[in-house]
């Protein structure tokens, strides 16, 4: 059974009394513990896909299933990491991370252990009592990822989580996410418009068309990553220099460029 399933999903938007399609027949499955990146031209509806999996929006046609069941609404089994972090500025780092666990009614001692472990994993030690605005953007996003990871969710939904970060921080966070994903694999749907990020992080990359968005093609990165042994390189730039990486990246770029031209008529 797949962890996330988009089954012929369409989505209409209303504007000025007229409805126009944002998504048209999206078919995509994410297997258990699989990391799938969704790339596409801006406005193609990739964020809408994620928001439907999260339960913030409902499909106009077709079905969005998580764990085999239709998504009922937002909930802690489908944790979201937002581009703009969306932390609670009035809560400390530890309280931000604890909030979801308190909602679950977890007892304080167990909660403390879980929080301590995730804070260590995310490299947030020493910042437990800081407020979000005292941290850099990269550190704030670590808190947001910790807040999602600590719930031990069925799926993790990441909506351009590194889009608001500067280039250097972004690279560090990509390496961190790979490190954490190896220690603690999760089912991840990852939205990005950065092709290299998608290829570096994902097991599979799904490319979307211009609006109304559909899945244009899905590339299996996992086989190439294993065959070329990308993981022997600790640094993003070393992986990105490999011929197999460049080849994949260029292929996806070309695929997206076709869409851009098509959309500009």
């Amino acid at each position: 059974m797949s962890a996330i399933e988009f089954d012929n999903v369409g989505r209409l938007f209303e504007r000025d009394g007229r409805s126009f399609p944002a998504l048209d027949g999206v078919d995509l499955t994410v297997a258990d513990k699989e990391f799938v990146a969704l790339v596409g031209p801006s406005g193609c509806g990739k964020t809408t896909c994620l928001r439907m999996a999260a339960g913030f929006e409902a499909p106009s046609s077709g079905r969005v299933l998580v764990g085999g069941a239709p998504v009922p609404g937002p909930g802690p089994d489908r944790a979201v990491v937002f581009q703009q972090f969306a932390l609670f500025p009035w809560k400390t780092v530890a309280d931000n991370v604890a909030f979801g666990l308190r909602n679950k009614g977890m007892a304080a001692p167990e909660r403390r252990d879980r929080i301590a472990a995730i804070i260590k994993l995310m490299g947030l030690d020493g910042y437990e009592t800081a407020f979000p605005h005292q941290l850099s953007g990269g550190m704030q996003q670590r808190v947001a990822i910790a807040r999602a990871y600590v719930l031990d969710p069925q799926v993790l939904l990441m909506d351009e989580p590194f889009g608001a970060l500067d280039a250097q921080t972004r690279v560090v966070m990509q390496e961190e996410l790979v490190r954490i994903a190896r220690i603690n694999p999760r089912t991840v749907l990852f939205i990005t418009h950065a092709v290299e990020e998608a290829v570096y992080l994902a097991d599979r990359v799904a490319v979307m068309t211009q609006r109304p968005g559909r899945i244009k093609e899905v590339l299996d990165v996992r086989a190439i990553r294993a065959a070329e042994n990308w993981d022997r390189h600790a640094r993003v730039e070393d992986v990105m220099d490999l011929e197999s990486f460049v080849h994949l990246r260029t292929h996806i770029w070309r695929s997206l460029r076709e869409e851009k031209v098509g959309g500009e008529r």
Partner: protein
Amino acid sequence: MQTSRDWIGTATVASLLALWAVLTMVTGTIDTLRFPSPVQFWQSLKQIATTGYADGTLLSHSLHSLKLVIMGFTVAAAVGIPLGLLMGWSRRAEALINPVFLLVRPIPPLAWIPLAILWLGLGDAAKIMVIFFAAFVPSVINTFTGVRGIEPNVIEAARMLGTGRWRLAREVLVPAAAPMIFTGLRLSLQASWTTLVAAELVGALAGLGRVLNVAQQDIYPAMVMVGMAAVGAWGWATTRVLAVVEARAMPWLAVRA
């Protein structure tokens, strides 16, 4: 920087006081029958503080006014903040309440005074009612605006984390709207003092407004000024207390600097 600003402020006030003393007592440019000298002001202050004026001392009048302001303000905040939260959160509640609000809001709070006196007489209840009407509006409107202004992502994050309704209100909506709620409370407090003095001027048995009223009838400008200064001082003091509460209530803003 701060100290040089303080110096300029102190110097300005000192100059004005000196000018006041010179114009009234040395050159006689200002007629002291219309505008009292600093010495007359001081004597009137001593009189009301010790022997009393208008059936009470400065302290008893002040405490009476302060009590009414605190009561009216507290009731207004206790009703206004929850109502603003409800209207901000629920479109249905807003649709229900807003028309009534729009109907009542254009009526200046002071216009309620005659009705309040007819209904409740010259006692405390009428004053509290008028203060309530004045202080209620800014509390509701600013709380409402504060809730409406919350970043949608933050509310989505709370829903994604499985937050129950009560905890959402207490731990997300209230703190997120807190800066606006306190803006509302500051305006409410100001409105409370304004309307209290107005209501006491129209008719009261005790209070700082009554001091002003009696002093006016006695043609006693020095005592009028003492009354004005007392209202100003209490307004300032209560605003300071609210500022301390505000800083304590929002520790995450204190470390921003």
